[in-house]
């Protein structure tokens, strides 16, 4: 196990910069998720950690050792790829033991290590199969097994669940989290799925355009997003964000709807007003809205409504029967309202 330190790391392809002076520290044994939309540089950063991409500037340290010019095999890391990257001509056991074979370990040691890892992941019955004979979930487990066998200091996961169906993704998510809790090995996990990031990580790094937007614990990011990007990226359905201005202690949206300001911020100025779908309730007093679509999910009801000209999403815990076109009155929980400047920076 080891800590990972990323210090002012830059990456550019020719004259095009893709990672801009990123810094972060990952504690020993921590599970950190890099999350962001496609092209935000999260996979590139992970590949730089792995040694698969050169570093244009800055320093990466693993367990205190600068690894900028250290070959991937010398970094004592293991990586799980999106496509699993299993060697198609090797059996599961050969795939898992390949790194040890290259290290020159004897057959008995390799077999024992492979068997131990297979026991952890319940891969025992699959050891003699070829990857093409496995299902997606099984391949994913083999890819993890290959990483575990090496007992590395750091695990790197590059969108490992993207190729699985939704149900299997949930199962594998729990398996990876359980595995981390058992092995307690430092893990860096890249995903574009904020649910994955929220449910698995000790800390989340939200990235956009090669920059870090915010680093924090999942609920910290959810409850106090640093800017509008994080506010709308984290959480599903996304936070409702209304543009407008503060007028006489109220926030008036561009559509002319007046929303109550949080306590202590009546005098503040803000250009965007955010409220999560579950922090809006249907009440007797509030702002008038009209129901557009009702989506009952069983455990909750998702409602899309019109607040003036703007769309607004609600998540209601109760099974309320609403009809499209029905007028409702919405009241935001003013303790959970988020205010942002014109540049999208949080002000409250």
């Amino acid at each position, binding site marked *: 196990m080891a800590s990972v330190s990323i210090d002012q790391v830059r990456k550019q392809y020719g004259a095009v910069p893709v990672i801009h002076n990123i810094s972060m520290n990952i504690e020993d044994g921590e599970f950190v998720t890099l999350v962001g939309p496609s092209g935000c540089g999260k996979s590139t950063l992970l590949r730089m950690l*792995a040694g698969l991409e050169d570093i244009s500037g800055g320093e990466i340290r693993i367990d205190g050792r600068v690894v900028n010019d250290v070959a*991937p*095999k010398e970094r004592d890391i293991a*990586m799980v790829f999106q496509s699993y*990257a299993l*060697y*198609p*001509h090797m059996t599961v056991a050969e795939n898992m033991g390949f790194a040890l074979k290259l290290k020159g370990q004897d057959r008995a040691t390799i077999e024992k290590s492979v068997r131990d890892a297979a026991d952890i992941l319940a891969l025992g019955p699959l050891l003699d199969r070829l990857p093409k004979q496995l299902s997606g979930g099984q391949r994913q487990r083999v890819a993890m097994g*290959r990483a575990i066998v090496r007992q590395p200091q750091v695990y790197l996961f590059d969108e490992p669940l993207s190729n699985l169906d939704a149900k299997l993704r949930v199962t594998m998510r729990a398996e990876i989290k359980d595995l981390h809790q058992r092995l307690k090995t430092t893990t860096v996990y890249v995903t574009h799925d904020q649910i994955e990031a929220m449910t698995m990580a000790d800390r989340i790094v939200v990235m956009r355009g090669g920059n870090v937007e915010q680093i924090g614990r999942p609920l910290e990011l959810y409850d106090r997003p640093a800017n509008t990007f994080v506010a709308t990226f984290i959480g599903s359905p996304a936070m409702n964000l209304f543009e407008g201005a503060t007028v006489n202690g109220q926030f008036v949206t561009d559509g002319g709807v007046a929303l109550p300001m949080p306590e202590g911020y009546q005098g503040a100025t803000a250009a965007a007003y955010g409220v999560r779908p579950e922090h809006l309730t249907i009440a007797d007093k509030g702002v008038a809205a009209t129901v557009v679509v009702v989506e009952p999910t069983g455990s909750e009801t998702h409602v899309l409504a019109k607040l003036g000209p703007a769309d607004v999403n609600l998540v209601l815990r109760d099974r309320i029967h609403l009809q499209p076109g029905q007028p409702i009155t919405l009241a935001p929980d003013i303790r959970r309202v988020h205010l942002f400047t014109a540049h999208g920076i949080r002000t409250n």
Partner: protein
Amino acid sequence: MTLQQPALPATAVATRPARRRDRGRLFQEIGMLAPAVALLTIFLLVPFLLSFWTAMTNQPLVPRPTPVRFIGLTNFLRIFKDDLFWTSLWNVSRFTFWILPVQCGLAFATALLLHQKLPLRNFFRGLFFLPAITSMVVVCVIWGTLFQYPTGPFNQVIGFLSGGDIQPIDWLGDPNWAMFSIVLLSAWQAYGFQMIVYLAGLQGIPDELYDAARIDGANAFQRFWHVTMPGLRPTHVFVLIITTIQAFKLYTQVAILTQGGPRSSTETVVHYMVRAGFEEQKLGYASAVSVILFLIVLVIALVQRQLLRRFDV
């Protein structure tokens, strides 16, 4: 009072126009396929099937007053008794034995080189493919000049490099050298095709496998051995088989440069067949040779199928 219209079964309503539409489409498809099928039948299928029949007759090239007779397997027996046929078969086997490593090796090496991220990569890919789209006749004329004895460019270069110690080689006139010369020019002309196949094979190997191998600790040679080579197994099999089939059909180079000589050292099965059919005008006999060649190629193709299945990882 309102009369209720008896409802037509939904399927009846739906299927009648659908069936008509299907039939219309079927005619359309047949109409579009017909020209190609007709041409293939007239120029490929009928001659192919006829050759089996002709092989068992004494059919001459030019019709004679005497009727064509069915002679059973006589042509085949005659072929098997002809030393020149066995020589030609031995020669194409020799040619195949040499062309496989030379041509496939050259194609593989070039493909590996052009798979690298080199500047002007696409330009060089096109350049190296040029011989493959050049007519074999043109290639033969050029290489015939290069091979000239005793003052052709090859001999001059060899003479210059050896300081005159190595005597000029009669590339095409010496029975010991003639087939080797044909191998060289054939490999040069045709390796571009195999190179493209190898390039496609190389591009089909996911980059992530190389990344995984690097993380697993594989050096460049180990990555080549454990990722590239297994990834190219089906490609290798395909290239080897296709090259073997092409080699067994060796004709143009021999017809232009050596006419099977010197002393039958470059006689090939196809050249033997063409001579029997068009010079000796024994169409039945030539057809029998073509049937034998077809069976040889068929066996190779079947072996290929089996091998491809086995190596399809």
